[in-house]
């Protein structure tokens, strides 16, 4: 059993009239247990060249549905440094390919996923930003 820790800190000294400091630490475990996850894709980096979710190429697959057992943890970051160079993450499994969220330059997301949907990335602005991503979980 491996031990993998995810932690987050959200801080600001001037957003509010008092300092803000939110933090959470999670040990990443297999579904509903205290047993640690043992699989990871490793940290990957890819160029997002597709400008639409309907096109045949250039989209980057971040996670393939049911590749891991639930829960799979997705980390994804837009490496662009120019504001407005967005990356859209969409659900390629559900009808209509609904967009899950948009990452502006420098943004990241961390999500414990249900694991049954394929997530892909495209960039509508045609700026070819790079995306960095990693999935952690447990094999089926």
């Amino acid at each position, binding site marked *: 059993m*491996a*031990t*993998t*820790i*995810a*932690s*987050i*800190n*959200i*801080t*600001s000294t*001037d*957003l*509010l009239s008092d300092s*803000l400091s*939110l933090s*959470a630490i*999670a*040990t990443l*475990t297999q*579904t*509903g*247990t*205290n047993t*640690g*996850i*043992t*699989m*990871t894709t*490793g*940290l990957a980096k890819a160029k997002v060249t597709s400008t639409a979710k309907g096109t045949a190429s250039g989209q980057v697959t971040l996670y393939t549905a049911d590749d891991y057992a*639930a*829960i799979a943890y997705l*980390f994804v*970051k837009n490496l662009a440094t120019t*504001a*407005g160079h*967005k990356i859209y993450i969409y*659900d390629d499994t*559900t009808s209509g390919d*609904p*967009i*899950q*969220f*948009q*990452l*502006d330059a*420098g*943004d*990241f*997301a*961390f*999500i*414990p*996923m*249900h694991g049954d*949907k394929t997530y892909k990335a495209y960039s509508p602005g045609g700026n070819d930003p790079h995306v960095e991503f*990693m999935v*952690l979980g447990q094999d089926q």
Partner: protein
Amino acid sequence: MATTATLTLASADIAGDPVSVSKTATLTKAGSTNDLDQSIGLNRVHLRSTTQKTLLAANAEGDNLAAKVYIVNKSDDASLYITVAINAQTTGKLYGGDFMLIPWSQTDTSASIKVAATNWTSSTGDIPVEYALFHEDTDFLTNA
């Protein structure tokens, strides 16, 4: 005025070599380098509903505005989970102790963030959930 989020993923034994990933993002307004300047603060609710309840109500006019949502399941029970749905699509499933941070796109009023304690029963006890929203333009975002 800067708000930053730092995520760290670390394991000494999940792979052949140690894994240590640490990333920081400065939370900014949409398409700019100006910092987000508003927050609803850290909220806490005790979830006992197996059906979806609105945690954050969307307004379509917020579609092109930046918003970042942090949600954490504060339950100590590893088997108790909450589902997080946007536009009726399950985006996250947080077991006890799990957290998520995502940018929130309010594509329309259906994009409200809803949560449910799907496996809650009267004997499991409530699931404490904490959440915070960092955003721009308070006129377009309402805390449900």
